[in-house]
């Protein structure tokens, strides 16, 4: 019997979690970084679409935790814990952080590399190993994670779709 798989969509500066057989997807990552945290055995995963490296950059009081690498990864881990996932069993796959344009203020030009660095630092701090990554470059990416296979598929405009 064929069952239609539902795809959970995650917008920019947003996060969500998924259980098999559903998959989870975010579209049009440029300088943003998509972070997948998953438990291979429980077949549960979370996806976060990070826009900025550090919540100390926020200029207003209340913040959207999913916008920043530091607050977002921690927040996603907490969401997964509510589903009974142990932080020890989490692994990560990451994609994005492109340098789309070569101008702007110096902070903005390097936003892609800075996002990648911040994501890696936070994952290291939380002792979550990065199993695979597709970061940098100058192309946008659409990514989809399948918790039943732990594979992350990445589509770019010029290179088609690859799986990591």
């Amino acid at each position, binding site marked *: 019997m064929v069952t239609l798989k539902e795809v959970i969509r995650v917008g920019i500066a947003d996060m969500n979690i998924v259980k098999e057989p559903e998959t989870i997807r975010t579209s049009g990552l*440029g*300088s943003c970084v998509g972070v997948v945290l998953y438990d291979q055995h429980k077949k549960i995963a979370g996806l976060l679409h990070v826009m*900025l490296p550090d919540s100390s950059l926020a200029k207003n009081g209340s913040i959207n935790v999913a*916008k920043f690498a530091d607050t977002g990864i921690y927040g996603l881990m907490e969401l997964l814990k509510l589903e009974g996932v142990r932080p020890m069993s989490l692994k990560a796959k990451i994609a994005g952080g492109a340098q789309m344009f070569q101008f702007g203020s110096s902070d903005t030009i390097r936003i892609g590399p800075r996002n990648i660095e911040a994501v890696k630092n936070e994952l290291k701090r939380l002792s979550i190993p990065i199993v695979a990554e597709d970061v940098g470059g100058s192309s946008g990416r659409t990514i989809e994670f399948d918790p039943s296979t732990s594979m992350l598929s990445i589509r770019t405009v010029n290179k088609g779709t690859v799986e990591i």
Partner: protein
Amino acid sequence: MSFDTPITDMHLDVLREIGNIGAGNAATALSQMLDRKIDMRVPKVDLVSFEGMFDLAGGAEEIVAGIFLRIEGDLSGSMFFVLSIESANRFIQKLIGDITFDFNSPPFSEIGISAMQELGNILSGSYLSALSDFTGLKIYPTVPSLGVDMVGAIVSFGLIEISHSSDEVIVINTEISEESTNGTESINGHFFLLPDPSSYKTIFKSLGVM
């Protein structure tokens, strides 16, 4: 949204007028370039989420040709001129007289890229000089840069500055299109002007509505 002052209907009218004057001037320039009549829609001013901004430009995953520049000077912000791939192709084909030019099959010819960049220069230059004349503000645009990629990847870059203080953005959106003879062969594109939140006061003051 962290604006210092509440945005009223009168403020929205002022922002619409900016779209009107800027895009009107750019439409005239485009019309001269193509020697065709160019129509302009009534500008829309919306307060949208970042995802909503992508939707206005065709959806996060849609592939477009986007010309992007930053504005500096008395006011700061981001500006985009976004064309569907089909519209960009038709435009370049007309401009360089080469019907084989196609943004779907890279690498692109140098003359095609340079024509697209020139389109960006002329349209953004005429939009912003009209805006500068109208407001009396000094506006320094960066050199426009061309990206052919997913809407989300291109447009999010122009939201970085705004995202430090907000999760929503006010966008002045003006659509222009070539008047088509048979309804199929038309070029249409959108101007998106996204002033940084810190610049609203400057705009409203310059036009005497604050």
